[in-house]
């Protein structure tokens, strides 16, 4: 398929057809991607992809299962719940900022806000809620924000991810921007996100086992043994970029939010399983 793509691209260039015209819809992209991974890993059931590397590697899976009795994020989630329920100085709580009081809504994030014309991630909504209520915003990548978002994810476990790209040119542009980021090679080492997670999932890169694109954001925020604590998806983006010697974008920058939008859309239909653990 990939070879066919090169031929198409070369043909496209030769005929000078503006390639923008040939854009596939988000739903076409998602279906093609799910099919691509189902063919690559025929033994993994669709829902299994939320477990990333643990769905693909038996040894890793056993180690992981043995951790599940005392998951290392438990205390952080309890802290998150307490912060979530503690009123701000003005007497209101986080619940006042969210649909359904913030319970069981993780699967709808990120969404495109057609009035503000931007992607709203869960972490952005948490900090905007704080600011709207006269509180200082939290730091983006770890600590309190990961705990609160972890608690909110825990109330949404099992709910299918349901990201929408509304019929709106700006929403589509945000999705396309995230998609282009995902496939663009960056950094001195010349890797895109897709170099590892589309082209090489199931393989080892030194001591790390590569997971497929589909299912990745379902786990976040995530407790990584490498971090020794929980972190947000944007912390992970920054880590991956730095690994390939590309300057990371700031957490919650437009670029990373668009990336999260595309990436999470690719996991539509898979259950929320965050917070989770990863190496």
């Amino acid at each position: 398929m990939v070879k066919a793509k090169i031929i198409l691209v070369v043909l496209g260039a030769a005929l000078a057809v503006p390639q923008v015209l040939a854009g596939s819809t988000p739903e076409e992209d998602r279906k093609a991607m799910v099919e691509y991974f189902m063919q690559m890993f025929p033994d993994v059931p669709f829902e299994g992809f939320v477990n990333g590397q643990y769905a693909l590697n038996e040894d890793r899976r056993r180690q992981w299962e043995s951790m599940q009795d005392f998951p290392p994020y438990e205390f952080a989630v309890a802290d998150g719940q307490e912060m979530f329920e503690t009123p701000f100085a003005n007497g209101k709580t986080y619940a006042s900022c969210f649909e359904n009081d913030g319970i069981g809504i993780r699967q709808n994030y990120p969404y495109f806000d057609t009035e503000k014309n931007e992607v709203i991630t869960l972490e952005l909504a948490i900090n905007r809620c704080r600011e709207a209520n006269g509180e200082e915003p939290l730091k983006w990548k770890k600590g309190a924000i990961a705990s609160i978002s972890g608690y909110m994810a825990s109330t949404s476990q099992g709910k299918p991810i349901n990201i929408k790209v509304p019929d709106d040119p700006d929403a589509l542009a945000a999705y396309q921007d995230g998609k282009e980021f995902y496939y663009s090679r960056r950094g001195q080492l010349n890797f895109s996100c897709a170099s590892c997670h589309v082209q090489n999932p199931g393989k080892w890169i030194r001591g790390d086992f590569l997971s497929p694109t589909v299912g990745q954001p379902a786990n976040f925020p995530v407790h990584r043994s490498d971090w020794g604590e929980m972190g947000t998806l944007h912390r992970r983006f920054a880590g991956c970029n730095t690994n390939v010697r590309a300057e990371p974008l700031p957490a919650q920058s437009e670029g990373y939010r668009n990336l999260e939008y595309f990436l999470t859309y690719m996991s539509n239909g898979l259950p929320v399983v965050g917070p989770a653990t990863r190496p």
Partner: protein
Amino acid sequence: MRQGLISVYLTTLVLSVTAPVFAEPSQGDIDRGKELAFSRTDGNCLACHQMDDGKLAGNIGPELADMKSRYPDREILYRRIWDETQFNEMTVMPPFGRHMILSKQEINRVIDYLYTL
């Protein structure tokens, strides 16, 4: 147009990169090459290739063995390490020379070492 560009690229590469005739490498050259190949901050070949006595090697690329019979032409091997994307657009192998991850001299030391495998 694209083909034209590629051939210009390749010509430039050949002109700028052509390695001089090589004398037999010393043991020091080979040791230095191995050090560069294994080091995570230099070649880090082990990230993707199994080779020699390297620990925790990745398996994205093929095992590096029998290098002399697979690459009898040193120049070709040099150019592939310099920029494999010129040979295979889809490769994930970093363009070590073009992106200045390794210098010309360092690539040559790595080749000295690879030829012992």
